[in-house]
């Protein structure tokens, strides 16, 4: 008999200390020892983030993701699209997050039966079955304090005993018979700026990664149309399956029957250099002196193209070179910490007020005798700007068809730093 082991064979969840704390097999049981190859790679990579996602072993392939301090290691045996597996693993992690509020070892162990039910429901024979949160939640109810208590008193169960209604319709992402007393539709336009700024302050690379996250609590089967003031900004977009692609192609309108609850409607990318404003600038002077085992550190952050809004939640992190022993700095604003083990300097700046620019300055002590560090540390900046989509994207209007009631509608904009790096 010839086993055709297709798709995902097994899944192991491994924590950072290398304990396998959960395993699930969709086909025959694969021994835990297969994970030894993973541990080997992990050891070689030193840093957990650097473990290669695809590892080949004599008889299997291990495809893994690292999320929330957990490695999701899947075992496959034949030619399988790795992205398929990786996407699926992320979906599993999303589902845990969604069900338990966090995707952690404790949460998973505390809900191990639900986890097992979820995994069985998400994959059959290695094929993904139901990965939509809406459907899963109808098949397997998420735990709540109330339900656990009630269950233990009444002996009722947390397994849905009816079928998810969405299964019957052509819109698998929405269940039928949704009812709310307050009908609301919220859209969060969230933009993250990824940028690399070089020593001299000019932009090497910048782009905006935007998403529109929605929270829709509307009764019945609402059919929504969302239009923008400037839809031409969106030329590189990924859509939730609910969006009618043809309408977008012809009219540049997002037309869809939404899933119930929270979901990501679209994600988009704006890369045209002149459209990406850089809201902060950094003045820096980091130098190490030969033979004195010390160096100087002087960094100032200021606002740049911030469209008149306040830049807040500013945090700067710097991976200092290995030779750095400690740092004696003074911050004119906020507080700083330096971790001598990881060599990470974190400066929590807070809000930038243009009148008094935040500055962090002082002495860097190096290990005595160590050679002057060759590399210059990059500064990693985080910030937030409320009420602004830095690309200028603006929602024009939201129309609802198919239902009679008047929903409450809201749009919120926020801009954040993504991978925003300043080289020194």
């Amino acid at each position, binding site marked *: 008999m010839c086993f055709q082991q297709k798709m995902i064979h097994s899944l192991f969840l491994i924590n950072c200390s290398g304990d396998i704390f959960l395993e699930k097999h969709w086909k025959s049981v694969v021994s835990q020892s297969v994970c030894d190859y993973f541990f080997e790679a992990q050891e070689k990579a030193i840093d957990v983030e650097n473990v290669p996602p695809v590892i080949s072993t004599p008889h299997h392939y291990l495809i*893994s993701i690292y999320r929330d301090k957990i490695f999701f290691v899947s075992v496959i045996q034949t030619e399988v*699209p790795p992205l398929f597996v990786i996407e699926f693993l992320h979906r599993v992690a999303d589902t845990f997050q*969604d*069900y338990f509020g966090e995707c952690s070892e404790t949460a998973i162990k505390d809900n191990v039966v639900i986890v097992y039910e979820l995994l069985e429901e998400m994959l059959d024979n290695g094929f993904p079955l139901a990965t939509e949160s809406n459907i899963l939640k109808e098949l397997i109810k998420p735990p709540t304090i109330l339900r656990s208590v009630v269950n233990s008193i009444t002996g009722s169960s947390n397994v849905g005993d009816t079928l998810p209604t969405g299964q019957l319709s052509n819109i698998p992402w929405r269940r039928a018979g949704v009812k709310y007393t307050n009908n609301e539709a919220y859209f969060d336009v969230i933009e993250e700026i990824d940028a690399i700024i070089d020593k001299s302050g000019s932009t090497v690379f910048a782009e905006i990664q935007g998403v529109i996250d929605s929270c829709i609590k509307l009764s019945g089967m609402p059919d929504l149309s969302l239009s923008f003031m400037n839809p031409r900004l969106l030329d590189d977009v990924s859509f939730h399956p609910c969006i009618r692609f043809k309408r977008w192609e012809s009219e540049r309108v997002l037309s869809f029957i939404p899933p119930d609850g929270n979901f990501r409607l679209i994600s988009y990318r704006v890369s045209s250099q002149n459209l990406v404003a850089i809201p902060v600038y950094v003045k820096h002077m980091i130098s190490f002196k030969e033979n004195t085992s010390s160096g100087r550190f002087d960094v100032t952050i200021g606002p740049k193209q911030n469209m008149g809004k306040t830049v807040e939640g500013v945090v700067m992190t710097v991976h200092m070179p290995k030779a750095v022993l400690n740092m004696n700095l003074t911050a004119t604003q906020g507080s700083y910490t330096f971790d001598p083990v990881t060599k990470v300097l974190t400066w929590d700046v807070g809000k930038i007020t243009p009148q008094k620019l935040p500055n962090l300055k002082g002495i860097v002590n190096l290990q005595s005798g160590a050679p002057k560090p060759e590399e210059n540390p990059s500064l990693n900046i985080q910030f937030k700007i409320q009420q602004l989509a830095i690309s200028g994207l603006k929602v024009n209007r939201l129309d609802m068809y198919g239902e009679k009631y008047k929903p409450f509608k809201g749009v919120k904009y926020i801009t954040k730093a993504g*991978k925003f*790096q300043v080289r020194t």
Partner: protein
Amino acid sequence: MRRGPCCWLETTMTDSKYFTTTKKGEIFELKAELNSDKKEKKKEAVKKVIASMTVGKDVSALFPDVVNCMQTDNLELKKLVYLYLMNYAKSQPDMAIMAVNTFVKDCEDPNPLIRALAVRTMGCIRVDKITEYLCEPLRKCLKDEDPYVRKTAAVCVAKLHDINAQLVEDQGFLDTLKDLISDSNPMVVANAVAALSEIAESHPSSNLLDLNPQSINKLLTALNECTEWGQIFILDCLANYMPKDDREAQSICERVTPRLSHANSAVVLSAVKVLMKFMEMLSKDLDYYGTLLKKLAPPLVTLLSAEPELQYVALRNINLIVQKRPEILKHEMKVFFVKYNDPIYVKLEKLDIMIRLASQANIAQVLAELKEYATEVDVDFVRKAVRAIGRCAIKVEQSAERCVSTLLDLIQTKVNYVVQEAIVVIKDIFRKYPNKYESVIATLCENLDSLDEPEARAAMIWIVGEYAERIDNADELLESFLEGFHDESTQVQLQLLTAIVKLFLKKPTETQELVQQVLSLATQDSDNPDLRDRGYIYWRLLSTDPVAAKEVVLAEKPLISEETDLIEPTLLDELICYIGTLASVYHKPPSAFVEGSRGVTHKSLLPRTGSNESVESPDTAPSGGPAADQPSVIPTQGDLLGDLLNLDLGPPVSGPPMATAPVQMGAVDLLGGGLDILMGGTGGSFTPAPNTAAPTNVGAPLGTGLGDLFDLTGGVGTLSGSYVAPKTVWLPAMKAKGLEISGTFSRQVGSISMDLVLTNKALQVMSDFAIQFNRNSFGLAPAAPLQVHAPLAPNQSVEISLPLNTVGSVMKMDPLNNLQVAVKNNIDVFYFSTLYPLHILFVEDGKMERQMFLATWKDIPNENETQFQIKDCSLNADAVSSKLQGSNIFTVAKRNVEGQDMLYQSLKLTNGIWVLAELRIQPSNPNLTLSLKCRAPEVSQYIYQAYETILKN
């Protein structure tokens, strides 16, 4: 970004309590609980069982007890039992079959969830017997009113097919499955496609997904209807279709393009695969072709903003895509710029793609980035960045100067690994732009001492050799490397050999000694066949025709190709068909690595076919792929000529090797002549025996000039020598097509020879004799070719004394004195092995000083001492002593202790090993006792054999 309530976990009512009972007797306890009357207790027990299962504990022993809980109307309990069953059904099929009646019953349950669970679990039980029970429920479930049941049943068909393919076909399940492709529910469609493609893949001959325009249309419609996972299956399935003309290809592309905007990256990449493949059929003049190219860029770039694991897979695929169609991403260089906190595996891939996209337009930016990377922390990344600068120089000529100066800046940092990488790439730059940047050589030479990696050392040596005429102290530099010649890696040794030969040809007067030194190091003291071969080739070239040598060694080298490590075009085309798969991550076709990949067929890109042209039209027929206009990546490897011309290591040579044809022809002649000389003029082509990599080993003694290299003296002294055993037959005629060889070994005044008698017992004349030895324990090798002056007529014999030396390559044999020989004649090559007596290796100066003997005897540990009995030897001490001396076993001292004679003897082997012996002779006892002490005790046994042989003859 999912927002959910975060406070669920404060409860104490969690499943972690199920883990707490881990003492012995647990199974027993669980058993009791499972059989409890209380429903609640049962449920808790099953949960405990499942909790144990999740951490890999074997709870299969509870199978019957868990199955007993199955008959319940409590849905949760039932589901839990099914969870358990699904886990063990595959490994415990015989037990699972016990539950089959319940399964069948549950397939009729009013609750569709239960129907689905039952059919799903049944499919997991891999026993033939299950099939008879499964068929009817499955048939019903495939037509179930509920889509949840139908989609589960669809997958079940694939499972059943795996158990019993014939049955599935006979029962008509495949047709039902095909019908499900047009189901109204997207999940059913998705699973039907998944099941069909799995079945099709495991049975390539089944014609299951015989794709025709109608079925393609059905799939394309389903593509819009089904879930994201199903879309991936459909797209992968479409990619195997061969459109009949460009119009059909275009119309499929049009319908696939919207998938590029999907949020699921696997859908996007599968769509890219279909488009990349079908684009091959579209004419480049078509407007649509251009539109499509433009549409491909944004989704690929978007993949790079996803999680790092996704980025990695995307980057591996983009690497293929930019090699195939660089125009797609030529304006997107910046998205590949490396962020310092990217994982290392992403960084390295990005760097690779940056180089592939580098062009005159963006080179300034790229170089600035690379320079930045070269100061990062991660060593692997820094190395690759430095290397990338060199690749830029080679790829974009206009930037070469800038690259070289950047590299020089980096060398100034004196960071060891940066310097070494820089030197390696500068060598390549020299090969691409000869006579342009040699001004930097001085700077390079300053760093000679810091190079400790073979590749960097080899590169530096190459540079010194290549530009020897411009480096005043080139000979000193090269000589300094020569000191530790044997500790160098092969790469460095080869390079050093070539460099010194180049130097010699450029400055012959001052470097004669150096070249002799390196040639003898390479040919005599090395056991690396490549090194020896190259050494001999140079040696012969130099000794026969220095002018020709100059022409060959200093020939103008072909410039290295524009871009290194491109994937070979045919492989690239194949890999494009595997975009998104593991093959694309490993850049190898699946057949090369997927275990048990059944029915993997080689895929290739489609030929372009116009809809308005007839297929038979000659100009469209075999256009196959773009292979013809691609530069050939590497010339033949491993053949002698290729080897000769490729003496310089380095990146692949661009252009076909025929470009240097005249030189090549010269090489052939030279080589032929050389071989003739080597073979002693017996003519003909000598085929080396397969188990010896080197040609016959002509070991010229150290220090002889080049001139008398081949002046072989077969000087046969006739002084009394070592004992010579009578000849025995080594190779019977039966085994060698009529050639019989008998022989023995002898040692006379320091020279060893193999005395052979060749007898022709065949009916045809034999000629063209040659001989070769395999590597052996003491490096025995013929010191001259096998000289058979006239052809050997039938029934004729010839006696030959073949001089041997011991400078051949050494390999420990078992037994130690085993010698494997290959003899060739005009008929064939024959092999035999023989044992040689060790005393032919006892050298003439094997007498040790007494003091020395005493000291050495004490010095050698006692565990190295071995004792032997030589029986039935009635010789007295003096006779023994003189007999042994004839074979170079010397008596150092003689003592008489309590009436017995003690002889203390020494001997030395050709490889310098000393053996010390104590021989006890008792007048009344014909048995002698021999004690041997040697630092290499493994020879003792053979020494003893030699003693026996000598004394008894």
